[in-house]
Every structure is written in C-alpha cells, then in structure tokens.
C-alpha cells in the first residue's frame, strides 16, 4: 500500500514545488528582454505649492538619454539587481554611468556598483505607474521638511527595437 502511494505523494509534492516556484527574475525580464535598451523619452518635473496640492511650475527634459538593462546580476544579485548603463545626454555630450537596477513591477531602484553611481536624474526609489514590455512610466517624490509634496519627477521610457 505504502509503495503505491509514496511515489504519488512525492510527485504531488514535487509538482507543487515546481508550480509554486516564484521566479524572481521574471519581472526584471520585462526590462532586459531583447537587447534591453530603453529610450528615455522625457523626464517631467512638477513643483508644488506649499500645501503640496497644486502644481505651480513644471518643466520637461526631452530625450535625456537611454538606459541599457543587462541580464547579468551584480554583487547585489541576491536582491535581484541587474547591471545597467545609463547613457545621458548632458551638456558637453553623452556621459556614461554604470549602475545597478532593481525592478519588481511596483518599484524601481537604481543603486551604485563598484564601477560607478547612477546619474542624479535616475538615483533613488521610483514608483512604477505603468509597466508593459514596450512602455514604462515611473515617478519619484521629494518632500519638504513639513512633509508636504515639493516635487514630483516622472520618467517616461520606450523600449528601443534596435
């Protein structure tokens, strides 16, 4: 009797584990599929009044650069960080930044590696507003000392088909 049920129950357990296996790298694949190059269409800055309720000034930086996300993990691979390179169009030409990126479809975080730091425009923990394989939109917020919203920065990216 035991001989009959043991393989079956073992199969059941193995099947449960296989089906239940959470693939941590599945989400980051949305960013590094293909050649993993994203064009940063724009970075939109919105500055708020002292109550943090109304936008008093806004500006947009068009075509600020591109972001290349690699499949290679960094030393922070335990936390699902991948190597990334940001080619930013800055005064004087294109500057290259080596950094690492975390992406879980809800948040994006740019971190530093031994090879460098992320550009100031991208550094920090972003909230994902829109996430699909061809388009991404992320926001990050800056507060005043009293906790009111001072600035909202929104980045808009398109997957580059090259």
């Amino acid at each position, binding site marked *: 009797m035991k001989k*009959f*049920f043991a393989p*079956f129950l073992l199969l*059941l357990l193995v*099947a*449960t*584990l296989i*089906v*239940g*296996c*959470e693939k941590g790298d599945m989400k980051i694949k949305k960013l590094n599929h293909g050649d993993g190059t994203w064009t940063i269409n724009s970075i939109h800055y919105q500055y*708020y009044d002292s*109550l*943090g*309720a*109304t*936008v008093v000034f806004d500006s947009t930086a068009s075509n600020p650069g591109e972001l290349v996300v690699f499949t290679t993990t960094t030393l*922070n691979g335990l*936390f699902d*960080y991948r190597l990334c390179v940001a080619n930013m169009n800055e005064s004087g030409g294109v500057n290259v930044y080596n950094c690492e990126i*975390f992406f*879980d479809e*809800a*948040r994006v*975080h740019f*971190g530093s590696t031994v090879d460098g730091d992320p550009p100031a425009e991208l550094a*920090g*923990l*972003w*909230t*994902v*507003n829109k996430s699909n394989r061809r388009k991404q939109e992320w*926001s*990050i*917020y*800056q*507060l005043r000392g009293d906790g009111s*919203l001072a600035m*909202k920065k929104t980045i808009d990216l398109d997957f580059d088909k090259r």
Partner: protein
Amino acid sequence: MKNKLFILLLLLSVSYPASAQLAFLFSAEAGLAGSTVKTDELPVFLTSYNTVNSGLTQEFGMKQGMAKGNYYHFMLGIGEKKCMMTLGLGRYLVTTNPNEARYADGTGRDISTEIRDASTEVGIRFQKNKFVAGFQFVISIRTVSIYSEYIFADGSKSLGADHTLNGVYDNFAFGPGFGFNVGYRLFPCVYLVAKADYIFRTAKKHPEYHQFDDLQDFRQEQNYLPRDLNMYVTDPYNGSGNSISHDIRGLRFGIGLQICLASFEFEKD
C-alpha cells in the same frame, strides 16, 4: 484530528479502483478568479494606524473585500470516462481593491492585498452526458503581497522612500484546501466550468515564521508591517515581535473555459 481526516480523504480519493477500460484526459483551463480575504492579523495593523492617525476623515475598514483576478489550470485525468482521478496544477492571481484611509486634504494611505496561489489539486471527476462534477483536495503555496502606498493630495501614489510605511510586504505559506467543481460541455472538447475551494491557514503555532516583510536591499530597518505603530517608531528593528503575520485564508472560486487537449481510452489487459 483534522489533519488525519484530511489525509484519509486524500488517500481515499487517489485509491479509486481503475476499471477494465482506462481513459486519459489532459485539459487546460483559464478564467476569472476571486477570493474572500479572511484575516485576523491585517486588521491589527489597520486598527493601530487608525488610532495613531486620529485626524483621519476616512479610516481603514476592517474588511478587505473580495479579491478579483484570473487563473489558469492544467488537469490530468485517469480512470473510467465516467469517473476518473484527477491531478491538477493551477496558478491563481487575485488582488483586492485598495482599502483607503484619508485626511481632509486628500492625503492618506492605500492598502491592497495580492494573493498568488500555486495549487496542486487531487480529486475525482464524474461525467454524465454533458455534465461534469467533482471534488478536489488542494495543496497551495500561497504567496501574499500587501501593497502599502502613500497617497498625495493630487492623487499620486507612492511606494518610494518618501514615507517609511511604503512598501510591498510579502510572505508565503502552504495552504491545504478542499473544494468542488462543476462543468457543462458547450462543444465536443470545450467545457464551461465553475469551481470553489476553501483554503485553510497553516502555521498557527509559529506566526513568527510568516511575518510580512519587505526584505529589499534599499530598506535597512522598519521593513515590516507593525502590530503597534507607536512601537514601530520607538523600536524600529522589531526586537519584540511587533509585526503582523500571514494568516490569509478564505473561499477561492473561479469560472472559466476548459479545453480538452488530449482524451483517449483503451482496454486494459
């Protein structure tokens, strides 16, 4: 006793005697899913939040509402055509609507719960004419993520580092369950199916193994959802077990289309 009864019923279901004519069935199924979210732990955090933030014009509700989403499922059946043993593998993804707390100026916090089930199901399926019905025992790996978002006055949502409670807090646990399914054959290989399973909680004795954590590298402390928000500030490293645990259980159900990918019968020697 409950565990012994569960194992007994499981063994009875898999030991159904095969007849002289063996039938095999392999099917794929997908559809809409829903789940009730029964929890005693999350309301502890929500109550503490409501108490500490006394100026709220809209407090967190204690009921989490219905989680809605979708599922897909594969099933292998073996036995007689009219009565076969089934082994199913399924994934369910359901999310609740945000539970909202707001101040008069529109700022506040949203809490929503996402349940991701990876289920293995063993059961018996009966078929008569165009109708099928059955029951199944379920072992589910239930991963739950609680999204805690700050809401700004203009409606923008943040999971970022601007507020400490922001985060995606995860945990998983095994969840045994039991349920039934019914179906109606629409076309020769296509069934309309409805199913319901009650997923029980486990690990009652060791809630400390199932704390909701946001264990990311960018969070150094306060990476948990607290039972007591005041203690969360005074003892940020959670030295005193001040975190809520995964105890989410409830009735999970689905309605979808089942397509038989392979079905054949042959005579046994």
